[in-house]
């Protein structure tokens, strides 16, 4: 029974992706707006670049290092952003989720396909930035180790999986509480500070670092970024990836559990 479900999901996945890509292309304007909402790393780039210019390197980061760091952060954020919590929240409140529950495919898989399908468009938009980054920051600021580049790809994929699991959990909370988006708000606040989105994590006081490394936030942004700009050795990278894997498994288990429990107690309006 389970196996049949997985096989069905795998068969349906390419079609779901195609639909999603077509939708992303159809709503181009909305897409550009979304792109503009993630300009925070570029603003942070300007800010920290100025800090470094004014008083010299800061915690081992020169102006060029900050440029490389925040451009990489911009690209990683583009590739790993998910918005499933908002979709799910709206569909649960408005009763639209009934449609998804009726389909012979797990709703989380369908949501995942929708969120993945925008990646080609995002790549198209963020690749020029990545190339510009390489050009501006120079080749020294991107890791040369092919193993580390491979780990970067892995950790970015992991960051997407982790983000999706978390956002799906928060979205599914709408089955139980009214203000699940307030939880998302809370989450984003923590994410901005603890993931390296505002400040590279190595600039935080040393006594905070071990805690920050263990929390799930770093795996969602800081880890892939530090990997790409060559700030981590192989051992450190593997250590980070192990923590990331743990959080991915934990968050997906939680998402499946919360969604399942919520769907069981859910009764749509008019149903």
């Amino acid at each position, binding site marked *: 029974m389970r196996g049949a479900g997985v096989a069905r999901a795998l068969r349906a996945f390419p079609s779901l992706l195609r639909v999603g890509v077509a939708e992303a292309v159809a709503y181009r304007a909305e897409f550009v707006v979304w792109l503009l909402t993630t*300009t925070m790393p570029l603003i942070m780039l300007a800010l920290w670049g100025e800090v470094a210019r004014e008083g010299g390197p800061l915690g081992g980061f020169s102006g060029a290092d900050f440029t490389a760091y925040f451009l990489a952060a911009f690209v990683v954020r583009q590739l790993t952003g998910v918005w499933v919590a908002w979709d799910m929240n709206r569909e649960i409140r408005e009763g639209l989720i009934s449609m998804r529950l009726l389909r012979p495919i797990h709703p989380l898989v369908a949501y995942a396909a929708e969120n993945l399908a925008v990646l080609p468009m995002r790549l198209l938009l963020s690749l020029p930035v990545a190339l510009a980054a390489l050009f501006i920051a120079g080749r020294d600021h991107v890791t040369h180790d092919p193993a580390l580049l491979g780990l970067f790809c892995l950790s970015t994929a992991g960051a997407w999986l982790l983000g999706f699991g978390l956002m799906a959990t928060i979205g599914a909370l709408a089955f139980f509480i009214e203000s699940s988006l307030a939880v998302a708000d809370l989450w984003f606040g923590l994410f901005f500070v603890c993931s390296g989105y505002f400040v590279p994590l190595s600039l*935080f006081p040393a006594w905070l670092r071990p805690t920050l490394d263990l929390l799930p936030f770093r795996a969602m942004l800081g880890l892939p970024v530090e990997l790409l700009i060559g700030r981590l050795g192989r051992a450190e990278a593997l250590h980070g990836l192990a923590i990331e894997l743990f959080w991915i498994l934990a968050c997906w288990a939680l998402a499946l559990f919360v969604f399942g429990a919520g769907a069981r107690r859910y009764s749509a309006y008019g149903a």
Partner: protein
Amino acid sequence: MARRYLRLLGAQLRIAGLVSLQYRADFFTDGLLSLFWLGVNVAPLAVVYGRRETLAGWSFPEALIVIGWFTWLKGILDGAVNPCLTAIVEHIRKGTLDFVLLKPADAQFLVSTAKFAPWRGVDSVGGLLLLAFAFVRLQRWPTPGAVLAALLLLCTAVALLYSLWLIAISVAFWVVRLDNLAFLFGSVFDAARWPVSVFRGAWRFLFTFVIPLAILTTYPSLALLGRLDARTGLFAVLGTLAFFVLARQIWRRAILHYSSASS
């Protein structure tokens, strides 16, 4: 005429108040969230000033004043501007804007006062606390004249925020699926938490003239510190007035463009 609109505003505010009284629990969640975001906003600043005495001529307490204004404005944005924004985008998408346009009052006035979220006012309290803390750290208090100038610039900032918002709405008439406008608005506004002099070159130009974030938080802070020269202040007020008129014109053009969802 003016009295009629004042009464209308009173009615809309009363409705918003009654609605918010139904969601009293929001007072606590919004309050806690607001305190939490205050911490989030101060965190990067604390990291910078943990390693530096000044940044682009701003000391730590002075930069806190900018964040205080930012928090205050954020409260106004979330409490009075964003709720209307989401409401009208929804109207345009569903075609129910017809009902607003049919009413015997100015449409701009109606959509701008359609929805309020009074509990968000908690943010303003947080902003005030931060301002007070910053001045205690500075060990001096602003002169009455400086406070007056800062309040005038606060009104300017709100007018500017509103004009930006009106232009954003007008865009929604052409590009219908813009339910994320509020996010865009918020993310651009986020840059206003830093004094604008921190930015150089193209960014400085962008944030002073194109998206005038300087007027939103930096100038009121400078005024409060007594460091804003009168000419810049006057320039900000006049510029905002011009911007307001422009926004109104764009809105009128946009509303002509509106064709209901079904027609």
